[in-house]
């Protein structure tokens, strides 16, 4: 019941959180919103393999537009594999296969002849470990999605400032944009990676345990950021911290051994889990 306590007491002690971090009110938003959010992405019977090892058993999950969807579940249950199928990064691993459909705006992204390159510019990704390009400056890291693809943004300076601002990093690095991206702290590097993804103005942002390599303060910053970005972008975040899922997401999906066990509004899933396995997991009885 520890998680339940966490999520309910949050509302009673808002002073301990940064002001923009008022997750509880925002979490009420999906139900209070006048128009029901539309489905931005949808998977249908998504299966995935590493060689002969089937790690996704047919997952059908909607991803709502301009909402934060959290994926929780014990490690090894296929969370990373699932989101890597969304931007077709799963297929770059030798021996990896998938089956089923992934729809983006109702179009199958795996349809024959579809170029994954274009898809990945619409569906950005932030990884578990911060991975800025070590040979590039902070500025060039932000512009990497353009420059390394041989494209020139119209107004690079504005773009850099905007992306870094959105990633809440601008104030910390604005005087040292030419410094090496690898010279930043871990938390700053992760926000740089977020800025790098945002500079392409993606429609969907996938985040694979973006805070697991960060200390608590950096984690709080990134969580706050996810919460803010959730108003503008469609976000899918993988986390194995249930507290984090409760803090930042509108909807939560619980994956277990490659299956989707339960999907619901985050509040509901944490307070009234429908499946026994979900309840066991969120109450910490296994994992």
């Amino acid at each position, binding site marked *: 019941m520890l998680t339940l306590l966490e999520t309910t007491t949050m509302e009673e002690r808002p002073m301990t959180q940064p002001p923009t971090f008022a997750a509880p009110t925002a979490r009420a938003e999906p139900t209070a919103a006048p128009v029901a959010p539309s489905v931005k992405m949808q998977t249908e019977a998504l299966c995935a393999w590493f060689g002969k090892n089937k790690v996704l058993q047919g997952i059908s999950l909607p991803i709502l537009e301009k909402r934060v969807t959290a994926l929780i579940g014990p490690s090894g249950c296929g969370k990373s594999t699932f989101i890597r199928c969304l931007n077709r*990064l799963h297929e*770059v691993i030798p021996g990896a296969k998938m089956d089923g459909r992934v729809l983006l705006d109702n179009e199958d992204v795996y349809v024959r002849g579809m170029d994954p*390159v274009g898809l990945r510019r619409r569906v950005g990704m932030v*990884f578990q470990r911060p991975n800025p390009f070590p040979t590039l400056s902070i500025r060039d890291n932000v512009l990497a999605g353009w420059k390394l*693809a041989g494209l020139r943004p119209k107004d690079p300076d504005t773009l850099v400032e905007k992306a870094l601002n959105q990633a809440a990093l601008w104030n910390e690095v604005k005087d040292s944009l030419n410094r090496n991206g690898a010279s930043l702290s871990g938390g700053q590097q992760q926000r740089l990676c977020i800025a790098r*993804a945002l500079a392409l103005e993606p429609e969907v942002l996938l985040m694979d345990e973006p805070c697991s390599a960060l200390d608590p303060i950096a984690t709080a910053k990134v969580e706050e950021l996810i919460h803010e970005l959730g108003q503008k972008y469609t976000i899918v975040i993988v986390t194995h911290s249930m507290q984090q899922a409760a803090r930042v997401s509108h909807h939560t999906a619980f994956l277990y051994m490659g299956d989707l066990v339960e999907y619901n509004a985050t509040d509901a899933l944490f307070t009234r889990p429908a499946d026994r396995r979900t309840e066991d997991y969120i109450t910490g009885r296994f994992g």
Partner: protein
Amino acid sequence: MENFRWRKNKDILARWLCLGMVVLAIVPLASVLFDLTIKGFGGLNWAFFTEMPKPVGESGGGMANAFAGSAILVGLSCAFGIPVGVLGGVYLAEFGENALGKAVRFAADVMSGVPSITVGIFVYTVIVLSMRRFSAIAGGVALAILMLPTVMRTTEELLRLVPDTLREAGLALGIPKWRVILGVVLRTGAPGIATGIMLAVARAAGETAPLLFTAFGSNFLALKLDQPVGSLPVQIYTYAVSPYEEWHRQAWAAALSLVLLVLILNILARVLTRQPGKQGR
């Protein structure tokens, strides 16, 4: 107790033995350098680098032909060897998990052990005989073939060190794979690859055997690529086996310059591998 003392003595013995071997290994190395410096230093002057050889009997003159020739040969071998070697290494590292990759890797490893004179004979039969003359091109090709395995394997090894997370970061940004390889992977491995290239060049610059019947040698300032050219190693060889005192002196000076050249390349290689300061660009 007896046992302990014996073990302690064994320890001391082993230590002295190692030290002795180290000294044994260093003595010839150091004396070569020492000898070279003593005998060669006197011959190093401006004229030695800039003037052409004088006819036998006249004193003075230099080896401008050999310096220019070596520069041409090394330049040519880089022009042939670096693109092929680096791109071959890229293939091995990024696409080489197949039968072809295995075969190429094996061939490269065998090639790096092939005596350099064999490469010379090969180039002689393939290029010199069909062009009907010795040429700088033939020499450049021979040196390039010698460089190839080193450059290719170093490139492969270094690209393998580039973490996959960087490749995925690039791909996830919607950058086409070939651009990820050029802009991210190769760039990250570049300092190390440059080192490998420097070492390969340093080795090629000192090769004599494969040049004897490819570039051949020339006492003129030949700047045409389809003509024989001189080179430092071949010039050293020719002068050293000659009966003239003056030529011996110049051979020493040339040998010293060659060693200095290799030394400079090695130092350059080390400077390049030193990771650029995290404060740097």
